[in-house]
């Protein structure tokens, strides 16, 4: 139908990331050759990022139901009821490839995108978190990426005005050419005022809102699903620039017109902007959509239909409005200084028709664009189960004190203060627990309820044993929520893997999803939203499998929040949970012995649940004075973190005779917490634990200015703190890692 567009050649098809059989399927569907614009539309809709073609069949197995779930996966974000007519809306999403190419803007637009997902549903964002994985600190690009990504996250979130309250930062050489930037946004909504993407009614105006369209990120969605070679730098011109100011205005304007009941359906323009949003609105509503591209506000002259349909310019939305409210909605948008244009309408035809300069440049069946996207049962091989490593096979340190000091100053364990101090974590005035604890705690409105928020994953466990690693990521998120006193509600997952076309990598994806499903079922902790990012690899080397879990929990009364700092001298320090001394895949093994091997610690989900419920009761009954879960680095690291947070030391008892000391103190056995209670309560707590089927062991007594272990030099809390706090700032100031 269009003469000026380039002819479709096999090369052009390949450049669009479509395989020959996929192209054939397109021809069969529409019964002719697609136009260039249509090819672009298909490539956007059918790429991995939008279609989930490799992961879909496996994602269906996840546990997504619970009585408190209002909206599970499939919408812009998941929604969970928190009582009082309120619900929490949340989702995590990756912006990995754009962040590697331009770390500041890549990370910034990642935050912008996930915030839009949340406020598109009508929620006001109340918190952000992020999970970051970078290459080895000695890799020449790592420092630049850390600096840019952190500044970008802060630059966007701070200006937009949402507190960034938590996250994690990890380093490993397997992320050298492919960092991970996973961002999570959390919003608050009234249950009766939720908005969806589903278009309703024929002849209703389709309205374009927000910033103008430029040539930003054309093919960004395709890029997000392409692996990197050494020529990654050459893919640069697709960089999108974020405008947090415009997004803040968009938020306020959207919430205002939603409150005025103008909106039938709303969808943000994310990856593959106008294409994905329009198709989704039509397909969900069983309607057709007609767009007139001459009406689209453009930033640059001479943009083609293809460019407009694939542009990823940020801070834009598409809405279906109630026709009688059009003028009112427009006035609100003009007041906020934003573009507003009626660009199309809903039709009964179930076709996606796009017009530009008097010509029809696309005319496609709307349902098939989404529903008929290829779904792959990709071949996979399961990761062989690793052999557990015995503690006797792992060398003991010269002294436990030396090992502890070294661990605390290691890149993964050290304080991330340098990072989170660049994020405004206090704005909105509801941050009860700031970054640095097990989970962030954000009060809901004026209280007394609050949300607990965390992001977790241990990629080295997932690499060694995807199933156990998947379980562990969920269990650790659950544990971090419990450790502050919350009732875990639900999770969002962000699955970052290499190429699904490699059976080994596909096996990791399948294994992790199974593990996540298992843990979510057993812990009653459903998945309500998520995102899959595949093809994270450089020169054929995939990243560590990284299924990041974002967990949300509910606290009924902010006054009953637990923190990890020791509270007073002379209190009993107790270990809740069972210890074998599991050193396989531990940080002790990696940082002290230079080995990465063995099986990761298995997660006994029944035990996890018992231990967690026990600890939550201790917090609720105000018996526990400090609580910290035991994770990376093991028991001694957990105790050191409690000491550093308070400035108080502790006198510790020796390890049980059955377990070598280094395995006891640095093993990473799961389902454990360190809890302090007033001395006088210790016996009762231990008895209560016995009744609950939970093991509790006395570890020592708080007090003094050092950690003291029998036969070891005293470890001054101040010295530990110095080690803990100095690695990251020194590294970022240019010192050798």
């Amino acid at each position, binding site marked *: 139908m269009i003469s000026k567009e380039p002819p479709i050649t096999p090369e052009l098809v390949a450049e669009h990331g479509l395989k020959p059989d996929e192209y054939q399927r397109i021809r069969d569907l529409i019964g002719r050759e697609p136009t260039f614009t249509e090819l672009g539309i298909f490539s956007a809709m059918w790429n991995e990022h939008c279609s989930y073609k490799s992961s879909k069949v496996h994602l269906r197995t996840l546990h997504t139901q619970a009585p408190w779930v209002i909206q599970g996966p499939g919408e812009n974000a998941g929604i969970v009821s928190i009582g009082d007519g309120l619900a929490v809306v949340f989702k995590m999403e990756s912006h990995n490839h754009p962040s590697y190419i*331009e770390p500041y803007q890549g990370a910034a637009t990642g935050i912008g995108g996930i915030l839009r997902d949340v406020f598109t549903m009508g929620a006001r964002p109340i918190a952000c978190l992020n999970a970051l994985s970078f290459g080895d600190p000695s890799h020449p690009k790592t420092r630049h990426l850390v600096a840019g990504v952190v500044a970008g996250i802060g630059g966007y979130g701070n200006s937009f005005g949402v507190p960034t309250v938590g996250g994690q930062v990890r380093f490993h050489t397997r992320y050298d050419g492919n960092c991970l930037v996973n961002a999570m946004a959390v919003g608050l909504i009234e249950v009766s005022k939720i908005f969806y993407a589903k278009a309703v009614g024929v002849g209703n105006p389709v309205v374009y809102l927000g910033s103008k369209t*430029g*040539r930003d990120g054309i093919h960004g969605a395709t890029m997000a699903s392409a692996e990197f070679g050494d020529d990654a730098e050459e893919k640069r*011109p697709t*960089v999108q*620039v974020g*405008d947090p100011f*415009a997004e803040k205005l968009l938020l306020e304007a959207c919430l205002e017109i939603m409150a005025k009941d103008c909106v039938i359906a709303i969808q943000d323009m994310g990856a593959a902007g106008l294409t994905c949003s329009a198709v989704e609105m039509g397909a969900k509503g069983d309607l057709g959509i007609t767009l007139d591209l001459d009406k689209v506000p453009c*930033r640059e002259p001479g943009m083609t239909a293809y460019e407009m349909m694939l542009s990823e310019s940020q801070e834009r939305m598409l809405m279906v409005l109630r026709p009688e409210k059009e003028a009112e909605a427009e006035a609100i948008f003009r007041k906020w200084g934003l573009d507003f244009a009626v660009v199309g309408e809903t039709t009964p035809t179930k076709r996606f028709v796009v017009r530009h300069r008097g010509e029809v440049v696309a005319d496609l069946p709307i349902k098939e664009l989404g529903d008929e996207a290829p779904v792959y049962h990709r071949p996979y091989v399961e990761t062989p189960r690793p052999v557990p490593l015995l503690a006797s096979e792992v060398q003991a340190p010269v002294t436990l004190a030396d090992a502890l000091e070294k661990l605390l100053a290691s890149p993964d364990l050290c304080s991330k203060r340098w990072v989170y101090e660049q994020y405004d974590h206090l704005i909105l005035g509801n941050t009860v627990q700031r970054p640095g604890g097990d989970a962030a705690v954000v009060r809901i409105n004026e209280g007394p309820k609050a949300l607990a928020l965390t992001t977790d994953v241990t990629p080295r466990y997932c690499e060694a044993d995807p199933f156990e690693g998947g379980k562990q990521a969920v269990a650790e998120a659950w544990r971090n929520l419990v450790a502050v006193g919350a009732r875990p509600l639900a999770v969002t997952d962000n699955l970052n893997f290499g190429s699904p076309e490699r059976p080994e990598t596909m096996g990791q994806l399948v294994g992790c999803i199974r593990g996540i499903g298992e843990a979510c079922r057993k812990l009653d902790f459903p998945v309500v939203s998520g995102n899959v990012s595949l093809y994270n690899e450089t020169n054929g080397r995939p990243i560590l499998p990284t299924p990041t879990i974002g967990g949300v929990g509910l606290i009924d009364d902010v006054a009953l929040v637990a923190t990890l700092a020791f509270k007073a001298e002379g209190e009993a320090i107790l270990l809740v949970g069972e210890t074998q001394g599991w050193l396989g895949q531990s940080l002790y093994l990696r940082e002290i012995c230079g080995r990465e091997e063995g099986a990761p610690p298995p997660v006994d989900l029944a035990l996890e649940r018992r231990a967690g419920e026990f600890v939550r009761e201790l917090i609720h009954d105000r018996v526990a004075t400090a609580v910290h879960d035991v994770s990376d680095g093991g028991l001694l690291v957990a105790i050191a973190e409690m000491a550093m947070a308070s400035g108080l030391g502790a006198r510790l008892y020796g390890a049980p005779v059955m377990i070598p000391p280094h395995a006891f103190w640095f093993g990473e056995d799961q389902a454990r917490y360190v809890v302090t209670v007033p001395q006088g309560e210790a016996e009762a707590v231990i008895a209560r634990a016995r009744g609950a089927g939970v093991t509790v062991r006395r570890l020592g007594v708080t007090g003094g200015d050092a950690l003291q272990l029998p036969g070891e030099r005293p470890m001054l809390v101040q010295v530990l703190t110095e080690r803990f706090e100095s690695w990251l700032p020194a590294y970022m100031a240019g010192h050798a890692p």
Partner: protein
Amino acid sequence: MKARVTVTLKAGILDPQGKAIEGALRSLGITGIASVRQGKVFDIEVEESDRAAAEARLKEAADKLLANTVIENYRVEVLG
């Protein structure tokens, strides 16, 4: 030697600052401004007497640090 490195956004890259300034000028009653794009200048004192050598050094500085060549262009002028 004195030099100036001027860094400007590549064509087509969104300039939210420029856009905000356009709006502000308009509301200040300053009309007839069709577009504003904001860039940076670096006024640099180089310890170097050879012009070409100074220029080479500044190019290196611009490539490695002063400009983000993903989204920006730069120009080096040695003023002598």
